[in-house]
C-alpha cells in the first residue's frame, strides 16, 4: 500500500474514551489515531466495541469520559449533523440507506449542502457514478429495492457526497458476495487515493489487512 502522507497532527485522535450502554462498560479507555488520508483498520472479535467506537466518534453514542479531537478541535459532545458538516462521514453496518427514498434522493441528503455550487455537485455525482455505475442505472429507484451490495455502494456513495475528510466504515462487506467484496475494496483504494482517511471496522481480516496501513 502507498505510504501515507505523514502529517504531524493526526486527523482524528481518540483519547481514553469510555462509553457505556446502560450499565455495560463497552469502551474502556480506548485510544487511537487516524492521520490525514490514512486508512486504519480495527479488527477484533464480536462485541469488543469496534462499532461502538465509530458510533462514539460520530456522536451517535455519548462518551462518558475521554476526548475526541478532530482537525485540532475537540468534538466530543457535538451533535452528529455538525460532525457531518465538518467532514466526518459515517457508513453504518447494515447500511441504513433511506429505503423509501430513491437512490438520487439518498444522494441528495449528502449533496444538498450550503456553499456547494451546482457544477461541483454534478462533478461529485459523475465521479461517484463512474465508480458505481450500477447506481447510475438505478438512480430513480427506491433504495429498498436495491440488492445488498448495491445498498452498500449507495451507502458509501452517499457518504462521498459529503466530501468528507474521513469516512467511518463499519463492516462494509458483511453479508456480501465475494465479487462485491472486491468491489468494496477497490472503492476503499479509490477513496484513499483521493486523500480521504478511512477508519475501517471489519470482520474480514484479510481485507482489512490488505486495505489498511495500520491495524
Amino acid at each position, binding site marked *: 500500500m502507498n505510504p501515507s502522507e505523514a502529517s504531524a497532527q493526526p486527523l482524528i485522535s481518540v483519547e481514553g474514551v469510555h462509553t457505556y450502554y446502560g450499565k455495560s462498560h463497552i469502551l474502556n479507555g480506548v485510544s487511537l489515531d487516524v492521520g490525514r488520508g490514512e486508512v486504519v483498520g480495527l479488527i477484533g472479535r464480536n462485541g469488543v466495541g469496534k462499532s461502538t467506537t465509530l458510533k462514539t466518534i460520530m456522536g*451517535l453514542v455519548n462518551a462518558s469520559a475521554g476526548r475526541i479531537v478532530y482537525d485540532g478541535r475537540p468534538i466530543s459532545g457535538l451533535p452528529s449533523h455538525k460532525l457531518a458538516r465538518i467532514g466526518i462521514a459515517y457508513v*453504518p453496518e447494515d447500511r441504513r440507506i433511506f429505503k423509501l427514498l430513491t437512490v438520487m434522493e439518498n444522494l441528495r441528503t449528502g449533496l444538498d449542502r450550503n456553499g456547494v455550487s451546482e457544477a461541483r455537485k454534478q462533478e461529485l455525482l459523475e465521479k461517484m457514478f463512474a465508480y458505481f455505475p450500477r447506481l447510475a442505472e438505478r438512480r430513480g429507484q427506491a433504495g429498498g429495492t436495491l440488492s445488498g451490495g448495491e445498498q452498500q455502494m449507495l451507502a458509501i456513495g452517499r457518504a462521498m457526497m459529503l466530501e468528507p475528510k474521513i469516512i467511518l466504515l463499519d463492516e462494509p462487506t458483511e453479508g456480501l458476495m465475494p465479487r462485491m467484496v472486491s468491489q468494496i475494496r477497490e472503492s476503499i483504494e479509490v477513496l484513499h487515493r483521493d486523500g480521504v482517511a478511512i477508519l475501517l471496522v471489519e470482520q474480514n481480516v484479510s481485507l482489512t489487512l490488505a486495505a489498511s496501513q495500520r491495524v
Partner: protein
Amino acid sequence: MDIPWDILIIQTVNGIVTGMILALVASGLTLIFGIMDVVNFAHGELFMLGAYMGVATLATTGSFWLALVVAMIIIAALGAALQVVTLRPLLGRDPLYTILATFGISLVLQNYALWQFGPVARKIQEPFSGQFTLFYLQYPWYRLLIAGLSAAMIGGLYLFLKYGRYGIWIRATTQDRVMAQAMGIPVPWVHTGVFAMGAGMAAASGVLFGPLVGVNHAMGLDWVLKAFIVVVVGGMGNLGGSIAASIFISLLEAYASIWVSPSQAIIVSSVVLILTLLFRPTGLFVPTPK
C-alpha cells in the same frame, strides 16, 4: 322509503367541504406525529388561535386574504417557539411526556384565549358572498372555495415533501432520524420546522372555517378529537390515509346529521374508530397491513 336525494347531495358537498378542512388540520397532526412521535394535543388550540388572529387582522386591515396569511405566519412562529421551549427538552423521553406537555399547552392556550377574547363568539366575514343554486337551496360559493383552498394547500404540501430539498430532509428524518443526522441534516431544526408547518396549517384551517361558525375559545376541542380519530383511522403517520379518512368520516357524519343531531354525529365517527381498531388497527386506508 322516500330517499331524499337532494338533501343527500347537499350533505355530500357539505361533507366534502368539512372533510377538506379536517384533512388540512389532520395532515398537520399526522406530519408532526410521523416525524417526531408527538401527539399534539394543542393542535386544536393552534386552530383556534389562528381563527382569532384572522379576526384581529381582518378587523385592522379588512382583507380576508391578508388575514389568512398573517394568521398562518404568526401561529407558525408560535408553534416553533412552543416546540423549542417545551418539546425539545423532551426529545428522547417516553412519548407519554410529550402528550402531557402538549395537553398542558392546550390548557394554557385555551384559557388564555378565554381571558383575552372573552366568551362571546366573534365572526369572520367571508371574502365574498354569493351563492349558486343547488337544487332548491342557495349554496354559498365560499364553501367550495374552502374545499379548493384546502386541497391546494395539501397539494402544495405533498409537492414540497416530494420534490423540495427540505422535503427530502423531512422524509429522511421521518424514516431514520439517526442516519439523517449522520448525513448532516439538522434534525432538531427539521422538527421545529415541521411543527411550525403543522401549526400554520391548523391556523389556516381556523381562518377558513371561521366564517362558517363563530370563533370562540372552545372551537378547538371538537376538531382535535375528530382529527385524532382521523389520524388513527387513516393510519398514524400516513398522510394520504389521513386525507382519505377525513373525507370518509366527514361524509359519514354529514349523512348521519340528516337523521340525528350534529353532536351525536360524533358517535358515528367513534364507531368507525372502534371498528377500525378491531379489524384493521394499522389504519383503514393503509395500502398493506404492516
